[in-house]
Every structure is written in structure tokens, then in C-alpha cells.
């Protein structure tokens, strides 16, 4: 299995922190031996690779050992990995994605064992754990605002969605609301498949939908694999002048597709996964040091348009942060001794 929807890709582990240390390094960190367990639902795919790279860079900077385990899309296994981390007495645990119902009993055990927990993109079910989220509603609404602007609020739209993936479900809520608020926007077809070859499968479906509905002018595909599939379909049908694609998430490959000549993919909204990984490790480290951390951390997304990418001559995610400084969030959970 590969990456799951609603997760995006972005900048690498370049440490762009401009902060100066304001405090002494706590003894525990100075002498080393702090173990933070990272318990992931999934590992494969650009998003997770970038996220991990960011987390590892931050861990290194903080002199922390990161013990990584992955559920490989098996949620039962993720829960067991979490249980094992508790058994091994990790100093803190970061839970990266997962199903609330499945993971909450194990999180509870961790909390009961007085192990600090940071939960990314999953509801930990306890106020003692820090929650870290990217704002999926905002991701969807940023992309949709461009769609609305381009079409003047009147368009037949093909929508790509598969239920059951939390981020996509949240983005779907925004879409549902958006349709209600904009009666001129009509969803004429819904497509979507998720497997390890999502893009090409979605392309085949999108082609069928475009064939059946020749009057479509926009495709809303709020997940980069969907967006790439939709783009492929539009290209293969030669409809670049007629149909535009509005997506979410970003990776180096996505940038290539976005900036290709005549690309119909117009805009995407995303957070930087490496940055999110760094934030997660910082939050965990703060809790290990016994500092207060806000119980709900949010990383806001940034709107990235095709035009802006072209203007800045950007070809990969590493260059993104330069052009879109908002992707970096050093002030979310800052570590005062670094």
C-alpha cells in the first residue's frame, strides 16, 4: 500500500529555524538517551517520507532518538506498535494518523503510564494528549476559492472523492457546504479510487466522466493523486483549454505536473509535511522537558497557484519555502533551548 489520501508532500529537512536559544538545554537532552517513539499508520509515499525526514532532522537537532514503527496501512498493527512503545517506556510518543477508535485505547494506556503523547491528524480521545492538525477545511476552501473565481461561480464540476479517509471526509464537508452556498456550481459526476496506482485509475475514470459530460469546465480533486489523475485525463483528451483542475497537497512530482506546459491543474492548497514533522517532534520534546504546550496545535495551509510557481521558477518542494514563507511555522511549538 502506498500513501493515503489527504496527506501532502512538501519541503525537506532544511532547518530554517532562525530562533536563538533562550534557555539552557535541559539536562535530560544534553546527556542524550531521550527516546521518542513515532507510531505511524503508513510510511510509504512522498508525504510520509518528507514528514519523516523533517521529524528526523528535528530529532537530531534536539539530540533525541526517534524510534519509528509503521502500521503499513494495518490499523491493528499500528495499535500494537503503540502498545509496544508503551511497554518499552518511550519518553514520549507521537501518533501519526490512525483511526481514533482503534488507537484511543492504546493512547489511554500511554497516558496512564505518564508518557506524553502528541497525536497528529487523529483524535486522541483524551485532553492529556497534544493534538496536532493540518486544517483540512481550510485546504479545501482555499482551492475552491480559486475555482469560484475562475468560473465566476457557475460551472459543471467533476468531483473526486472516496469516503472513509478522515482528511478527505473533512475536505468533503467543505465541498458540500460550498455547493450549498454556490447554487451555480453543479456536481455532475463523482469519481474516485484509492489503491497504489490511484493516479492512473482516477485518470481512466475522469476520462469516462468527461466523455459523458462534455460541458464540464472544472474538476475538484482535493488530494494530489486525484489531481494528477484528473490532469492526466484532461491532457490525454486534449481539453486543456476547457477544463481546469483544482487540487490539494503538493510534492516535487506535483510541482512538475503543475508547471508543465499547458497544465490544466491551476491551484493547490497544502501544508509542508516536513514542517509538520518538525512541529510534532518539537511538541513531544517540550512535553518530555515538562513544558506546557497548547493542547491543540494547528498548521495552516498555503495556497499555491500554477502562476506563482511559474513566476518563482520553482521545480521542487525544497524551493517552495523560499517563495511561500507561510509554509514554515517556527512559532508553532517553539523550543526555547534551541
Amino acid at each position, binding site marked *: *500500500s502506498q500513501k493515503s489520501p489527504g496527506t501532502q508532500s512538501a519541503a525537506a529537512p532544511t532547518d530554517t529555524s532562525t530562533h536563538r536559544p533562550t534557555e539552557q538545554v535541559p539536562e535530560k537532552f544534553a546527556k542524550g538517551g531521550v527516546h521518542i517513539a513515532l507510531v505511524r499508520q503508513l*510510511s*510509504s509515499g512522498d508525504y510520509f517520507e518528507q514528514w519523516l525526514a523533517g521529524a528526523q532532522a528535528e530529532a537530531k537537532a534536539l539530540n533525541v532518538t526517534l*524510534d*519509528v*514503527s*509503521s502500521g*503499513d*496501512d*494495518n*490499523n*491493528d*498493527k499500528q*495499535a*500494537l*506498535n503503540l*502498545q*509496544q512503545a508503551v*511497554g*518499552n517506556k518511550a519518553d514520549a510518543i507521537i501518533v501519526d494518523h490512525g*483511526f*481514533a*477508535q*482503534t488507537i*484511543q*485505547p492504546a493512547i489511554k494506556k500511554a497516558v496512564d503510564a505518564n508518557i506524553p503523547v502528541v497525536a497528529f491528524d487523529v483524535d486522541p480521545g483524551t485532553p492529556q494528549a497534544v493534538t496536532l492538525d493540518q486544517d483540512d477545511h481550510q485546504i479545501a476552501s482555499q482551492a475552491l476559492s480559486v475555482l469560484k473565481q475562475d468560473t465566476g461561480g457557475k460551472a459543471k464540476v467533476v468531483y473526486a472523492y*472516496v*469516503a*472513509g479517509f478522515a482528511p478527505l471526509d473533512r475536505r468533503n464537508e467543505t465541498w458540500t457546504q460550498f455547493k450549498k452556498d454556490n447554487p451555480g456550481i453543479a456536481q455532475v459526476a463523482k469519481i474516485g479510487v484509492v489503491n497504489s496506482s490511484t493516479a492512473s485509475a482516477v485518470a481512466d475514470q475522469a476520462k469516462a466522466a468527461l466523455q459523458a459530460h462534455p460541458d464540464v469546465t472544472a474538476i475538484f480533486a482535493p488530494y494530489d493523486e486525484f489531481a494528477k489523475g484528473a490532469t492526466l485525463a484532461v491532457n490525454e483528451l486534449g481539453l486543456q483549454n476547457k477544463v481546469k483542475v483544482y487540487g490539494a497537497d503538493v510534492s516535487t512530482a506535483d510541482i512538475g505536473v503543475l508547471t508543465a506546459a499547458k497544465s490544466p491543474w491551476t491551484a493547490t492548497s497544502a501544508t509542508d509535511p516536513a514542517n509538520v514533522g518538525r512541529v510534532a517532534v518539537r511538541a513531544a520534546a517540550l512535553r518530555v522537558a515538562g513544558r506546557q504546550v497548547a493542547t491543540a496545535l494547528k498548521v495552516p495551509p498555503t495556497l499555491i497557484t500554477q502562476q506563482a510557481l511559474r513566476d518563482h521558477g520553482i521545480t521542487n518542494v525544497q524551493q517552495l519555502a523560499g517563495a511561500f514563507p507561510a509554509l514554515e511555522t517556527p512559532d508553532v511549538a517553539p523550543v526555547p533551548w534551541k
Partner: protein
Amino acid sequence: MTLVTDGSPEAPPRAPAAARLATAGYRYGLLVVLVAVTVFFGAARSSFATYDNLLIVLQSVAIVAIVALGVTVSMTAGGFDLSVGANVSFVVMVTALAMVRFDLTGATAIGIGLLAGLLVAGVNALLVVVAGVPDLIATLGTMFLFQGLALIITSGQSVSAGMTIGGRPAPGRYTSGFTWFGSGTVASVPVPVIVMALLAVVAYVFLNNTRWGRALYAIGGNAQAARLAGIRVGRYRALAYAVSGLCAAVGGILLSARLGRGDVGAGDPYLMQAVAAALIGFAVLGANRPNVVGTAVGALFIGVVINGLTMLNAPYYTQTFVQGALLVVSLVTSFTLTPGRRR
């Protein structure tokens, strides 16, 4: 479907001592690799070779092993059940719906789950035994059917407590009795591990020490001879699918209890894993046929390798490769040392 290759050159005659060593390599190749790997991990990480970690490894393979036992039984009768993954998914959805949407008790949900597994088995049996469709094709059809059905009954959505159905919140939730099957323990041993152990013993006795098991093996060996000896081949093949379906249902119930929600497609990966465990089992103890001990070892093999590599902080992308390489090494030692290579 032939699992045995022909046409390879015959092994040359061996001296007795070398032959004994070869036979040992053949019979124990995979076990030796398993033990070696365990020792290696234990030396590298002290927390690996502990009772607690043993339980975690066992729990991580429990559901796969249970599903694989069913696959093993279907293979003994010369069949092949490709529908087990879809069956697990279907049972997960059905049990979730029973409790969350229809607010039924955990016991009822278990009953319904088992019935759902039998339903899948019934379709398989109808296709294979009554309509005469070859096993692989029939169970492939069933797989699509129930993969689809698992999606349709929930409109493709996951089922969890508090979800809204037609605007109103669902009335029920997973009962604590039900989730106990997933995360409860008896004398510190997790329930799924106990269920696995029980089922493995039952399956072992069933296949090796009962008339039915021997009849299944006879059918797998030569269905025609079995029929001429008066064995009701059709009924036994249906029985094999029923066992396979029930095992998948038990796996589905345990998975549902572990997950605490009905997750779309949760069972699908279990097909490949269960088939892998059962196939690796062929090479264990020189059986070269489906067997319960081999299947259990096969499942354990996968679990130990992944657990150990994770403990060593090996990146996830090396795990599949190491698993494949170890498997290939043990297969090669097992099969090149086979005494009667030609069969």
C-alpha cells in the same frame, strides 16, 4: 493447480550422512532460518526476546494466522480460497453495522458475523460444487462480489460510533464485550492469541486425526480416486469452503474488535498475507502440501521478521526486501535438498 514442479533433473544419489543432513535441511530449512533470525534479533535488542514481546509478535500475527488456517483447509481439498480477504472486510462491516447502526448486542453481532462468513462460503460452494466453476475463478468472482457488497451496505463509508445516517446519529456503539475480543487478555495473554491457538489445535486435529481431514487430503491428492472410494467429494469441498469462510469470519470479528470500527477494505490485505503464510507452510517439515504446523510457522516467520526489523529501527522500505530474501534463502535450502525432487 499444480504446486509441484516436474522436469527438474533428479538429484544424484547421496552418501548416507550427506543425505541425512540434506533431509534435515529439507525438513527444517525454514525453521532453522526462523530460529537464527530470532537469535540474531534477541542478541541485537534485549527487549526482543522477552515474554511481553513474544505476546506482541503473536498478537500481530494472530488474525493472519487464523485466516491462513482457513486457506490451508481449502487447499487441502485441492481448492484455493481467494475470497478470504473480502470475507474479512465483509464481516468487519457487518459486525460494525450490527452494533453501531442497529444497536444490537455484541453476541448478536458475533453471530451475524459468523453467518456472514458462511454466506461467503455458501456462494463459493455453490459456484465450485454446483456450477462446476474452477476454484480460482469462482473464488475470484466471490471476492469481487463481497468486496463490493462490503462497500455497498455502507455506501462506501466507514462505520463508527456517532456517525450520521440520513442526518441522524447512529444509535449504537461497539460494546465493551465485543471489543474485549480484540484487546482483552486472559492471564496476560491477548484474546486473539488464545483464539488463534485454539483454532490451530482444532484445525490440526481436524486435518490430521479425523476422517474428514483425511478425506479432504485424499480429495486434494486425487479427487477421482476419492470419489471412486465412495467419498462424497462435493460435500467435502463445500465443507472445506465452509471452514475457510468461518475462519475468515473469526478473523473479521477479531479485526473488527481490534479496530473498534467498520473500516472500508480493512480485510483486503489479509488475502495476500494469509496465502503467503499458507504457501510458506508448504516448505515446512518437508510436507510440500498444505499443513497446519507449516501455516503457523509461516505466519510467525513474517511476524518475527517485521517485529525484529522494526525494533532495530530498520526503515520500513527494507523490511519487505529482508522478508523476501530470507524467504527465498529458506525455500532454496528446503527445495534443493528435497530427497525425491522429481516426485
